[in-house]
């Protein structure tokens, strides 16, 4: 049976990748009028990166093992 933690890992990995991508895009092409305060901190880039790495760890650690 697939572990619940693998589903958590997939969720964090995919969401982290999407948020990180959005953050990197904003760093490369900053909007003329940012809609959020503290835009200069680029929270979506580093928080997305953290979620991506955490999700990657969960996916690897809780991947289904082959049994013989």
């Amino acid at each position, binding site marked *: 049976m697939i572990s619940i933690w693998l589903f*958590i890992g*997939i969720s964090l990995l995919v*969401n982290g990748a*999407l*948020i990180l991508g959005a953050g990197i*895009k*904003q760093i490369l092409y900053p909007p003329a009028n940012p809609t959020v305060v*503290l835009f200069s901190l680029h*929270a979506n880039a580093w928080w*997305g990166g953290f979620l991506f790495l955490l999700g990657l760890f969960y996916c690897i650690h809780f991947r289904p093992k082959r049994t013989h």
Partner: protein
Amino acid sequence: MMPLAAMFVETRLVHMSAIDIAIVAFYFILVLAIGFYLKGQANTGEDFFMAGREMTSWVAGLSFLSANLGALELMGWAGSAYQYGILATHWYWIGAIPAMLFLALVMMPFYYISKTHSVPGYLNLRFGEPSRILSAVCFAFMTVLMSGVNMFAMAKVMQIVLGWDLNFSIWISSLTVAIYVALGGLRSAIFNEVLQFFLIWAGALMIPVLGLYEAGGWTNLKAEIAHRFSTQYVHLWSGLGHFSSNPMGINWVGIVFGLGAVISMGYWTTDFLVVQRILAAKDLRSAEMAPIIGAGFKMLVPLIVILPGLLGLAVLPMHLTGEAQAAVTGGHSYNDVLPLMLARYCGPGLLGLGITALIAGFMSGMAGNVSAFTTVWTYDIYRPLINKRATDAHYVSMGRWTTVIGVLISVGTAYLVMQFASIMDYVQALFSFFIAPLFGTVILGMLWRRASNWGGFWGLLCGTISSVGMWTWVKLDPTALRYVALSPDAKGLAQDMYQALWSFLVCVIVTVVVSLMTKPKPAAELNGLVMGLTEVPHVENVAFYQKPIFWAGIVTAVFIALNIIFW
């Protein structure tokens, strides 16, 4: 709980980008995938209704906490923090932690050893059929109505925050929940609740982090709130000496005895919606550890709920008001504070995750209601009253159909509420009528061997009726609140606390008196149900740091320290 009818204004708070919509869409795909994957694991009654009783303490504990961590709770209590200040934290600390530890260390052995499927099931074993039927019917009725109210509230929030159509939100969420719970049963609901737990933290944690950065730290935040409002907004206990010396209009007696000793005990130890998650634990040690793990995380929840409300007091340029005033002025209400803070700090991607966290909270709350309703209907109403001798496969089939029917009743309730908004407040009040007396009945049943069958039944009934009576009295004559809450300065929340306290006392007194006048249950029939007549297996052969009592001590120490720090 917040009055739901008053949660909404006709404005659209945030605009989602394509990446935000992709994150929301991925959540729906993932929860459905979990439901389809778990379909093959829900073939027996134990699998479908009790998740096979094989959950680890972590899964059961996080699910136990998540079942309560709905989006209405998040938005409502963030709004309360803006309205009342740090006092709202009491609902997360003294209003939860002692009850969770009490459940773990005192009550869980009896629930677990009796192998009951539900809280009404325990009442059947302890007090007989009439008590079981009374509690099961009340619970099933209220749960399915609450689910409908939550569904409508979610749709309304999505309309306000995102501009989504009400019908779209109601049907997309209800169909998703119906599919994944009907397919995978309680296990599917629990898996999605754990997923929701992670999404809520991932989606909401940026608000306090960035908010504290903007405010210049906790000390500056307190100073700014004191400057703009009052110093009482940042003190947990020092303003509770009298009803009029704090923004909430309540005193320490109401908080300690009404909230801490009755309401929270009733909710966290006898509401089957949350207790069902613990009953799915794989062994007694896991069942005891699960509420302790839940308590540990519960203490942290104010970080993502209360702190955003306090930050709103300090950094938002506009002044939030009550619903009625906001509707007249076209401004924002207290309950908008969390979406406003989300929009303030969260750019593309983070906004989608925050919105997903809210949707996940709504849906898992609905799934929790539906899965608990399904179990109580099938095991505590259908089986004893309608079809006693069916096969296990028949009851599983009944469970799947009840899930779908329960969701449809919830949808019907949601549309009813759409027509008559005041129903929402009535439904929430319904829930509060029952929970405090139920705690009185269950705790006397577990701790007092002399409590008789009729004592339990009449105590529960009279406690509930007294609660309804007090609520009706204040509804018809608002000045009666001074008698219920013992002060002319008392406000609405004080009524909830004192109403619970009195109905609990009525339940206990009636149970004791009737029990002493009627025949007690033979001791042999109380084995496994009552303290003193039950041999509770001790946790042996594990290191001290793996024992529930050790972690309960740690949680207690942190709980006391937090209350002193924020005194």
